[in-house]
Structure formats: C-alpha cells, structure tokens
C-alpha cells in the first residue's frame, strides 16, 4: 500500500509541476503573442445617400483620403504610402486594403475607421470595405 500511495503522490506532484510549467511558459507566451496572431482588421459600412451622385472615381477618393493622417506620424496615409489597393466596382462598392508602418500598430483600428468614414461620406459610394492587412508593413524611410 505505501507504494501505491507513493505513486499517487508522485503523479499528483508531477501534474502540479507540469501545470506550473504551463503557467510559467505557455500562458505568458499566449498572452503576449498568441492572442495577437496575424489577423486582418476588416470594417464595412454602407455609403451615405447623395441624390444624383455619380459613381466616384479613384482620384476623388484618394484626394479625400489625404485628409486621413497617421496619428503617430501626423502624416497623410497617402504620403506614407499605406494604401495598398483601391478598387471601385461598377456598383459603386469601394474596397481598400491598407498596410501598417510597424507591426502590431496600436492605431490600426482607429486608422481603418477613419478611412471607412472618409469613403462612406464620398458622394456616390454605395458600400465601403476597408481591410488592414497586418502583413503589409510599410516602414517610414
């Protein structure tokens, strides 16, 4: 019987050690990097109604996007070169893909929201979709 008790105690102690190891290693790792895995930010909204508005052109949207600034750099996102793709289809749906100046940028969502607001307020836009791809890094040179 003492051997059996010993085995249980040993297993219990081993389990505690493994759990302590998980708490010491995997948990901090998950909290710091695992949760922040490479996930794109995608925002979508319908455009505001402007009667008799024509389908917008890309020049107009780019011109409007010059007013959106990177909060950290205080420079226009056009000047920084964050716009990766701008697509306007025949049904006036606008899709934009943005990059970031640095990985894990804390302003990513704020930036996406500002871009979306600017696009949906452009006359003629039926729908807008903004995607921030955290894999597109555009370091400021």
């Amino acid at each position, binding site marked *: 019987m003492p051997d059996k008790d010993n085995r249980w105690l*040993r297993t219990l*102690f*081993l389990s505690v*050690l*493994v759990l302590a*190891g*998980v708490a*010491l*290693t*995997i948990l*901090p*790792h*998950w*909290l*710091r*990097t*695992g949760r*922040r*895995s*490479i*996930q*794109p930010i995608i925002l979508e909204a319908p455009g505001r109604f402007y009667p008799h508005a024509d389908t917008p052109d890309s020049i107009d949207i780019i011109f409007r996007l010059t007013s959106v600034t990177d909060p950290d750099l205080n420079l226009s996102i056009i000047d920084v070169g964050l716009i990766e*793709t701008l697509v306007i289809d025949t049904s006036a749906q606008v*899709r934009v*893909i943005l990059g970031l100046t*640095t*990985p*894990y940028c804390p302003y990513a969502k704020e930036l996406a929201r500002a871009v979306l607001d600017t696009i949906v307020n452009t006359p003629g836009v039926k729908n807008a979709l903004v*995607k921030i*791809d955290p*894999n*597109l*890094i*555009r*370091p*400021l*040179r």
Partner: protein
Amino acid sequence: MSARVIFQALALGLSTGSFCLGFCLPVALPVLLGAKTKGMGTSTIRLSLFLFGRLVAYLLFGIIAGSLGTTLAHSPFLRIRIIPLLYILLALLLIIYGITELNPLARFAPCRFIQPTINSIWFLFLLGFIAGISPCPPFLLAITRVIDIAGILNGILFFFIFFLATSLYFLPLLLAGFFTRFALIRTAARILAVITGIYFLSLAIANLLPSLYTF
C-alpha cells in the same frame, strides 16, 4: 552613427527583453530542464548554445535586413507562410524531444535511435536558431529599425547589441542546472515539451488559416 545605433539597440533590447523571454521561454525551459546536467557549468554551456543559436539567427537577419531592406524582411510571404512553418518545425522538435525520453515510448527502437541526436547539446543550438528566426514583435521592431538605418554593418551591430540586451533576461535560466538533478522535474519538463509542441502546432494552424482567406 554607431553610438546612436548601439544606444537604440540597447534601449530596444532592454525595454522589450521580457517580451523576448516570454517568446523563447516555452522553447528553452522544457529543453533546459529535461536533461540531467552536471551542475551549473553544463547548464551554462547549454544555455549559451541556445543563446548562440539565437545570436546566429539575429545576425543573419541583421545582414538581410541591413542589405536588402524591406524586400525580404517584411515580405508578406515570410510572415504568412514561413512563420507558421517555423512554428510547425519548432513544434515537431519539441514533441520529439519530449516523447523520446518518456516511458513507455522511450523503449521503442525509433526513439532510441534519435535519442543521441535529441539529447546532444547542439540540439539546443538548433532550437535557439529556429526560435531566433521566428519573429516576435520586438524582433520585428528591430528589423524595422535596421531597415531605417540601412547598411550591413549597422544591421549586424544593431542585432548584436539587441541580442546582448535581451539575453540579460535569460540569465535566471542558469538555475535550471540546479533543478535537473530531480528526475520528477526532468519528466515534467519532457511532458511540458510535448504540451508546448502541441501549443506551437495550434498557433501555426491558427496563423495559417486566416491567411487562406483572400480579400
């Protein structure tokens, strides 16, 4: 320019070192605790080899980022495809490391065949190297800075100082040598290696899946 590079690398390394430790600890700790060592001396050698692996990886990236700039170091291909593959490689190495010494698997011929390789101290160098080239946020920040300052020598210098600064946080791992004398801790470390391997595998899959989604 060099003094500025040294200061910036030191500041970045010291301020984000705990982050680096958080990233490398799941890899380093199970492996450092999993094998019986003869005191602190062996433990120091084992930790040094792990750190040396990281250093080689950092210097390699310093050269690449300093010379090629954004074209390679920040390519979406690297971050979307290569990082999950590195995680899978790390996961497999950790799982193999864990199960080769755990009973009853340790008695099987394939396990006994790879035991000498897995228990070799160069295995730590390999793990350190893979952990070093698996970019974590501070590492990516370092790359971003190196791209800004440009130049191979600046890149090497920056990453070398960054490595030294972040390595200070690894010093408590020297105490692993004291604990490896207990068989129960070694067994727990091997089980932890398997759990960590499964964790990295799940992270790799979680990172790979969203990248399959196209805009």
